[in-house]
């Protein structure tokens, strides 16, 4: 039997295992710094050390998620005998030909490889968090624009609703929304039907208001949006895609919908506030005098001018969504027990913290670094967009 690895060689081996990530990071940074003057706001991230650090951390996890299949050393669900709660760097108890000879970051309570699970967990998190944030933004924008622009009864009722959701303690909402019983009642599907229609509405109005003077182009864009949008919609919300391309596991749908539901009122508030500010500007008045329609003004004149704060909030909100997903996992809501996502790994690891801290600490540090990266990136973006 070989000796356990020292921390130095553990780190070296992890670094070697992460090779595709380093290559990806170097490529992205080299290209971006080379052409940063031509890349607009994205390029200017590379002027601020804070933004660059954040971007680096985020991209590290993005590449880890993309190349996860090459990086992992063991099957994230595979249990090997004699490796239960074993310390980082331990050699396999009975080495098999062709298998990686070490558990780099130790084993968890079911003798699974912690390193591979964390890497696979990145994929779980990055699959849901950005997508949920995008949908939440579309919901928030589609409702926030008219609320801020028209004001009046529409604004008061939508604001009341959003305050209602915001006043709900998040954990309580999760406990009510993400349970196996609730799936029987069909509430997640109703919510999904309600929330997933907004991206379709948003894109349809976006193209219609821009191209309605040019029917040929308009029909093409709106038609394509409706075709693809409703196709995806039928699959994702009702699991009724005739071709079977779009579908979502009911567990995942439940989690996804709840996270979108919690996030969209926040976006709504920001968008509404900014529209109320921007609509007093002269160029909006000019547009109104020219006879432009309200939706054109909202989507093509106000929204682009509100993009700076929205992009910053988008980064922060992905981080927040990551925290929320972790919270769900931590309470064991809506995830399958063998899922490698960080929240539930922390949850299982925390019970044995006193004896074997590594199964919980490793995903905890991973989650922290991703959220930290997103926060730093948002800070850098905010600084750079203020310079305009």
């Amino acid at each position, binding site marked *: 039997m070989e000796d356990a690895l020292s921390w130095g060689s553990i780190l070296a081996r992890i670094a070697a295992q992460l090779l595709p990530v380093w290559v990806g990071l170097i490529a992205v940074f080299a290209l971006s710094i080379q052409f940063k003057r031509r890349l607009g706001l994205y390029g200017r991230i590379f002027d601020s050390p804070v933004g660059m650090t954040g971007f680096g951390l985020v991209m590290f996890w993005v590449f880890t998620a993309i190349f996860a299949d090459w990086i992992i050393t063991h099957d994230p669900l595979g249990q090997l005998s004699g490796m239960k709660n074993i310390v980082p760097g331990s050699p396999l108890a009975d080495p098999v030909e062709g298998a990686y000879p070490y558990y780099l970051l130790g084993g968890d309570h079911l003798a699974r490889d912690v390193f591979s699970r964390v890497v696979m967990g990145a994929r779980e998190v990055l699959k849901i968090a950005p997508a949920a944030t995008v949908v939440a933004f579309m919901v928030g924008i589609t409702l926030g624009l008219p609320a801020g622009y028209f004001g009046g009864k529409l604004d008061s009722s939508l604001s009341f609703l959003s305050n209602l959701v915001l*006043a709900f*303690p998040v954990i309580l909402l999760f406990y009510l929304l993400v349970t196996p019983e609730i799936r029987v009642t069909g509430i997640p599907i109703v919510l999904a039907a309600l929330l997933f229609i907004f991206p379709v509405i948003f894109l349809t109005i976006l193209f219609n208001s821009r191209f309605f003077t040019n029917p040929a182009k308009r029909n093409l864009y709106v038609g394509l949006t409706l075709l693809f949008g409703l196709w995806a919609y039928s699959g994702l919300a009702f699991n009724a895609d005739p071709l079977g391309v779009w579908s979502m596991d009911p567990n995942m749908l439940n989690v996804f919908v709840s996270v979108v539901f919690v996030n969209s009122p926040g976006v709504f508030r920001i968008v509404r506030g900014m529209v109320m500010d921007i609509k007093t500007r002269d160029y909006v008045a000019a547009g109104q005098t020219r006879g432009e329609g309200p939706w054109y003004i909202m989507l093509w004149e106000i929204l682009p001018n509100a993009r700076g704060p929205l992009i910053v909030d988008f980064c922060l909100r992905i981080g927040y969504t990551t925290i929320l997903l*972790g*919270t769900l996992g*931590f309470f064991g809501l809506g995830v399958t027990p063998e899922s490698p996502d960080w929240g539930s790994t922390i949850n299982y690891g*925390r019970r044995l*913290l006193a004896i074997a801290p590594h199964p919980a600490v490793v995903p905890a540090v991973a989650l922290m670094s991703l959220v930290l990266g*997103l926060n730093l990136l948002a800070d850098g973006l905010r600084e750079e967009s203020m310079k305009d």
Partner: protein
Amino acid sequence: MLSFVLRRIGVMILTAFALTFVVFYMTNLPPNLEKLAKSEASVRMDDDAVASWLAENGHTGPVLMRYGEWLGLLPGWTLTAEDGKVTGRCIEDGMDPAAAPTRCGILQGNWGYSTVFKATVSDVLARSLGATGWLMLWVMIVMVPSSLLLGVLSGMREGSRTDRVLSTFAITTTATPEYVSGVILIALLASATAGISPILAEAGWIEGKTLFPGTATSAMDDITFWNFFLPVMTIALYGIGYIARMTRASMTEVMTQQYIRTARLKGVAFRDVVMKHALRNALIAPFTVIMLQFPWLLNGVVIVETLFNYKGFGWTLVQAAGNNDIDTLLACSVVAVFVVLVTQLISDIGYVFLNPRIRLA
């Protein structure tokens, strides 16, 4: 001012009704009631038995009516069995039906009976809220002064080295949710195999195996520095970063104002400028943030009490939700909603008092 407060209170009451109704509806969904029937009566009931148990226990009326009964606005249900025995929401065992009150909901102080803790919900709530109150108190004592200090220190000279270091610290803590910082703190300070405890134990500096205990269960009876440090720090850390960043933003803005420059040019010492001219103005915005932090603390409390096994409000909520204890869960949500709405109201009104520039119609 008065009409503003009244309108706010009106909206608040409306919100409270809407939210409690949503919670009531969600906890009283048919699958939950079925689970309740099976856990209360017998696990092996068939569907008919479940239906009749639900009917006998007043779970079958329209949702709005049951909500009204639970609130105490509508008279409680009564049912006369075939043998002439009258049962009802407000009639306890062995009570004369004629003597029982007609209404008994939370407005009458009847919060129901907890199926998990086998006690009345008001007892359970009183005990757990007391425990959480101590936790919150210590979190506030740690969090508010330290975060304001951090924010003012880093905001008074923007871009200085102090500012950079403190801002990095603040941004790191805001990126660390409680379940992460809790786990890391336990691993560092309360694990027998990792962190600093083994080193200290070997050197003979601490008596037990670990520096801090990994749970706060003993704090239920007797709060000491040792059993309360980790839970309090775990909750406070997340809030410190956030409030400090808000304070910093507000402080840097104040420091660029004309009157600060005037004071500096007059030859007032930098200390006095900060203490006498800038501080009060800079603390208006953080006040709102601190008040709005309460709902967040509620989240933190749930996570930390679960993590450290401290049997307070959050722990009760998790137990109630996990075991389908409908009455307790409803009561917990009423408390949570109440806390959130009251802090919102206080932050709105306080903001107006602190900032004389705001006039309300």
